[in-house]
């Protein structure tokens, strides 16, 4: 067994009671939390960008060696989460559940083939369940593990020391949309390796792509990165 100490970091709009009773992540953590190597840092009733909550953990002086940035609608199904992360972080600096192995011009989401939301089949990696309950129907995006350019921000993990050494933070101008794309671009700009790892999980939402808030985020992202 690995001796990693991981910290699950989540920014949720829910109250503390609702998070632990109603959310997929809260329910998951009640079960997989038997593992003493797992700690949590949950920001309840969060109305700000998750970037600020995530950056707090990156800058914190705590014992946890690995930070896992997770959205609250994710069911974690693997009792051996820490071991999976250890295997993933032996290969990559930042790991996720799904991502793309190439980045194209004006790419608007980790899975898209350009500015639209068409899927770039053949260039994706990851397996992720979809559904309201744990063990949703698995969607196979592509082989895992694979080195990636961009990762889905529903779940991303890295060693705290690696992030600090590379001075990589989340940009708080990005809200729930594009904070992940921006983070991955920043990581790649610093020469860090990104990749998918084999953590079994189910996502409740399909993402809120195409909303006005998403469009605003896309414009801000393109203004920052040019493409």
């Amino acid at each position, binding site marked *: 067994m690995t001796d990693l100490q991981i910290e699950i970091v989540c920014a949720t709009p829910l109250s503390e009671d609702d998070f632990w009773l109603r959310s997929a992540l809260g329910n998951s953590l009640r*079960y*997989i939390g038997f*593992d003493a190597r797992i700690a949590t840092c949950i920001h309840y009733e969060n109305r700000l960008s998750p970037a600020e909550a995530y950056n707090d953990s990156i800058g914190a002086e705590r014992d946890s060696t690995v930070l896992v940035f997770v959205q609250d609608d994710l069911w974690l199904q693997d009792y*051996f989460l820490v071991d999976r992360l250890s295997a993933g972080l032996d290969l990559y600096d930042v790991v996720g559940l799904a991502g793309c192995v190439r980045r194209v011009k004006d790419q608007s989401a980790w899975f898209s083939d350009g500015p639209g939301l068409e899927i770039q089949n053949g260039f994706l990696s990851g397996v992720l369940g979809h559904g309201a*309950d744990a063990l949703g129907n*698995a969607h196979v995006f592509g082989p895992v593990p694979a080195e990636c350019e961009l990762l889905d921000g529903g779940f991303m993990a890295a060693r705290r020391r690696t992030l600090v050494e590379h001075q990589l933070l989340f940009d708080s101008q990005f809200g729930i949309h594009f904070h992940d794309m921006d983070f991955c671009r920043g990581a790649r700009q610093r020469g860090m390796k990104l990749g998918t790892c084999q953590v*079994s999980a189910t996502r409740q939402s399909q993402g809120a792509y195409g909303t006005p808030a998403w469009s605003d985020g896309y414009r801000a992202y393109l203004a920052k990165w040019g493409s």
Partner: protein
Amino acid sequence: MKLELISASRLAEGPFWARSALGQSLQKMGHDARLTTNFTFENKRGLPDIYNEGIQSARDSDVLIFMHDDVWLQDFFFVDRVLEGLEQYDVIGLTGCTKLRHRQANWACEAGGGKEIDFEGLSGVIGHGHVPVGHPTLFGPVPAQCESLDGVFLAAKKETLLRHQVMFDPQFTFHFYDMDFCRTARKKHLRLGTWGISVTHVSGGDFGGESWADKCRLYFDKWGD
């Protein structure tokens, strides 16, 4: 590598896929070309008969997985997990004991034929419940080399079992077939171990009935201690 999942269910084929934890899990996990299934529906035969047919069959499977039908497979990378485990051990399970006690009647039980769990020297993590991601019990660190494994899930390379002539004893129809199989494997110097595969077991086991007591006597008659 080709993996063959062998399971016997009392359910008919339709209810198996609609209602059993294993049937529902496999549908949710999606297709993996490396995994085939070999299911016996409406089963009334002992598990050793069915499992031995799998070992001796002409199918070209490399790895055999013997499994109960009341198990939620909740790891989408199940096949990779099994293959990883079989790089370390000849036979893998989810839970087991690292040493055998005197007159131990179950992989987890205390010495002396009792039915209480003795956590010392146990290994494994398994969830319990009627829905996926049940409440896990931590028996002990995983992986660990073991003397005996819980028969809810066992996997081995077919060639290993054939080469060492490790089979299930048909006299242990539903109880003690796993203990006996592990004793046989250890006698042939196979390495047994637990592996970290995330599953939830619906039932908590069926210990202490008349049938269990009968097989317990048979088991101690066969193995002595």
